[in-house]
Every structure is written in structure tokens, then in C-alpha cells.
């Protein structure tokens, strides 16, 4: 029996893996199309119909480029860094419930890799480990631009991890669990957490932008002052892994946003329809992915609308505004939960 479960999990893991890579690849394409649309341009349209093969072309190009490791760099660390960054990005998808279970015969096929009761803590662990990839990469390059980028990036990431964690505490006060499946099940029938935790949602959203290093928080790699930040010295697929992992981060963060605050795979109206289990499972996947795509679009929209912060502004916002706000949010929520 155990072997069948392990087989199930393996199939699911490979499927999620391929989907994350595909979404990340097409997010790069989507990013350019959205940018073009917002700036009244056409965007990539040469490779394949409507430029749809552009991500494939980009990927192949990355593979075919010369791999350069500067003489002054620490070779081993230089190679390990992008691997850490990519692996942690791919690992964090493990605790997201992707949909309702399928029924095959008398078995249930759960669309969830690991049903951990410490779900959210696992995500934080992976995010925190990811910043090692950046730090090691920036330091091992032995370039001043990379060092500056890595310093900025790591202090930005750790600064925003505090309000990120604290905004989740307020949500957990309501939910009473760290398990994401249970959090999703509580949000049935349009009972979305965002209505109970609007401030927590806003803090979480801002922190997610900062954690992903997306504009307006893309200080670590601001090309106009730091060339490329921590990946200045990287080339070929090692650079590719860094860039790609960022888009995977974006995909996973959107999934977590949808799961925690917007009902995950539930949608009011669709929950109360009496669908056959397998169709319900399919519909739930579609619902979750539409929410994810909406958030990915939001990421891009913000990037091409807002200018970049200065670094002291980023740190001030994190420490002086978001941390007190999220403390307040925790206290208010705790008082509400205890006394009402």
C-alpha cells in the first residue's frame, strides 16, 4: 500500500515541478507582454505564433552560452549559490494544496505533496534558506557590485521576513492551525480570510513583494546603479537559474497569497454546486490557478507602474512602519479572538 502512495506522490511532485517550470517560463513571456501592453508597445512576437515560443528560445539560448567563472571568484561557492537558490524555490511548493482530491477507484489522489502541520513554518524556512543563495553568490563573485547587491538583498529579505511572519501570526490566531489544508477548508463559501484580516493582507502583500525582490523593492539588482546586483558575474544557465528561481518565487508566493487570504481552491457559488468528485477536483484546480494568475499579473502591473525605492526608504518602511503595524494587528486580532 505504501508503494502506491509513494508512486502517487512522485507523480504529483513531477507534475507540480513541470507546471512550476512552465508557469515560470511563461511568466517571463507574460512579463514582457504586460510591460509592452502598459507601455503601448507590441512586445515579443517573432518566435512562433504571437511570440509564444519566446521562453523556449530564451531557455535554449541560456544553455548555449559560454560558462564563465571569474578567476578571482571562489569556484565552489560560485557554483553552489544558484543551486541553493533554485532548490529552495522549488521546495517551497510542497505544502500548497492545489485542489480537491481526485477519486480513482476507491482511492483518493490528494493534490498536496506534504500535509505538514507546520505548513507555514516550512515555507518560511525555505524562503530564509533562499537568501543564503544570494549571499553566497554575491560574496563568491568577488566583485564589488555583487557584494553590494548581496548585502542589500539579504538585509532587505531578513527585514521583511519579520512583518511577513507577524502578519501570518494574526491570521493563525483566527485559524488556530498552521496547516494550509485546514486554513483552506475554513474559507469555504466565500469566507475568505482577507475580509477578516485586511491589514494583515496588505502587510503580507508588501512583504511578499520585498521577499521576491520585485519592483518597487528590486534594490538588490537595480541595474542602473549596481549593473545586476548579486548576479553581475554570473553567465549561462547559472544566471538562468537565478532569474528563473525568481519567477518560481513569484508563482509560489501568488499561490500562497491565494491559499491564505483568498480561499485557495474554493470559490463562493462553485462550492455549493453538487459536482462529481473528479469534476469538482478539476474545477478547484482551475479556480486556484485563475487566482494565481491574477496575482502574477498584479506583480507585473506593480513593477511597470511604480518607480524603485531608495534603500534607506526600503529599510524604513520595513522596520518603522510595517513591524509596528503588524504588532498592532496581532494585538487587535488577539483581543478580538479572546473577548468576542
Amino acid at each position, binding site marked *: 500500500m505504501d508503494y502506491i502512495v*509513494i508512486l502517487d*506522490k512522485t507523480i504529483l*511532485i*513531477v507534475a507540480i*515541478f513541470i507546471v512550476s517550470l512552465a508557469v515560470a517560463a511563461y511568466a517571463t513571456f507574460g512579463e514582457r507582454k504586460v510591460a509592452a501592453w502598459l507601455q503601448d508597445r507590441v512586445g515579443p512576437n517573432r518566435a512562433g505564433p504571437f511570440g509564444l515560443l519566446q521562453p523556449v528560445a530564451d531557455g535554449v539560448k541560456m*544553455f*548555449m*552560452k*559560454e*560558462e*564563465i567563472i571569474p578567476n*578571482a571568484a571562489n569556484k565552489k561557492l560560485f*557554483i553552489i549559490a544558484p*543551486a541553493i537558490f*533554485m*532548490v529552495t524555490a*522549488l*521546495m517551497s*511548493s*510542497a505544502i500548497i494544496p492545489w485542489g480537491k482530491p481526485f477519486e480513482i477507484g476507491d482511492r483518493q489522489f490528494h493534490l498536496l*505533496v*506534504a*500535509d*505538514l*502541520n*507546520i505548513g507555514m*513554518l516550512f515555507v518560511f524556512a525555505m524562503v530564509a534558506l533562499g537568501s543564503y543563495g544570494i549571499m553566497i553568490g554575491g560574496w563568491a*563573485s*568577488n*566583485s*564589488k557590485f555583487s*557584494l553590494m547587491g548581496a*548585502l542589500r538583498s539579504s*538585509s532587505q529579505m*531578513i527585514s521583511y*521576513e*519579520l512583518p511577513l*511572519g*507577524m502578519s501570518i*501570526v494574526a491570521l*493563525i490566531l483566527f485559524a*488556530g492551525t*498552521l496547516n494550509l489544508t485546514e486554513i483552506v477548508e475554513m474559507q469555504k463559501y466565500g469566507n475568505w480570510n482577507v475580509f477578516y484580516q485586511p491589514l494583515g493582507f496588505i502587510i503580507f502583500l508588501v512583504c511578499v513583494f520585498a521577499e521576491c525582490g520585485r519592483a518597487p523593492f528590486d534594490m538588490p539588482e537595480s541595474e542602473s546603479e549596481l*549593473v545586476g546586483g548579486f548576479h553581475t558575474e554570473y553567465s*549561462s*544557465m547559472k544566471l538562468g*537559474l537565478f532569474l528563473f528561481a525568481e519567477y518560481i518565487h513569484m508563482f509560489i508566493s501568488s499561490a500562497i497569497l491565494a491559499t491564505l487570504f483568498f480561499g485557495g481552491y474554493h470559490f463562493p457559488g462553485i462550492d455549493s454546486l453538487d459536482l462529481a468528485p473528479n469534476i469538482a477536483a478539476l474545477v478547484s484546480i482551475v479556480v486556484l490557478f485563475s487566482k494565481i494568475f491574477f496575482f502574477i499579473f498584479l506583480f507585473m502591473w506593480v513593477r511597470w507602474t511604480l518607480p524603485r525605492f531608495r534603500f*534607506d526608504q526600503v*529599510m*524604513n518602511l520595513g*522596520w*518603522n512602519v510595517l513591524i*509596528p503595524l503588524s*504588532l498592532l494587528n*496581532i*494585538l487587535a486580532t*488577539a483581543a478580538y*479572538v*479572546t*473577548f468576542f
Partner: protein
Amino acid sequence: MTESIDYIALLIQFSVAMAFVVVTLVATHFLGPNRKTEDKLEIFESGIESIGNARLPFSIKYFLAAILFVMFDVEVIFMYPWAVNLKELGTVGFVGMFIFLAIFLLGFLYELKKGALKWE
């Protein structure tokens, strides 16, 4: 809820991710051209020859931010078990955490007053 199968699944996911990373890194190593020159292997410094290496002292602010993060992160981790159990703990739990958060806040205010987080 959590069973050993969930951790086995995590291991599988880890090996799949590792395999992907190793295969890409090895593939790009063999697929790309290999025409190295001295100039190419220099550190990028906007076209100017780089002076010294990059193992430079950096602003103490980054270090302070890291230290403060470690402290506050531990405090935030303490909040998780409390948050999960608050409904059972009731008023006692609330008051207890209120005192904890008050101390947290005091430390935070002290740090703000000392200017540890001024970035100009």
C-alpha cells in the same frame, strides 16, 4: 495529521529539485562554447581594471540589521505556538502575550531611539 509519508514526499521533492539543478548545470557546462581569454575572466568593473578585491569592510548597518533580525525572529517564532492555541488559552493567554509583546515593543522602541535603524 502529519505522517512519515509526508516527510518521505519532501525528500522525493528535494531529490527531484536537486536532479533538475545538477542536470542543468552539467548540461550548460558541456553545451556552451569554451573560448576563455584573460580579459573575459576578469571581474566586471565597468570596463576599468578592478582595484583590489571585493573583500571589503561594509557598513555596520547591515550587520546591525542582521543581529536585530535574529533577536526579533526568535520572538516571532515564540508567537506561533501561542497563536495556534489562543482559543483554548483564553484570557490568561492573552494577558501573558500582552506582557511579552510589551517587552518586545520596549526593546524595539529602545532600538529606534538609539538610531540603530537610521539609514542616512
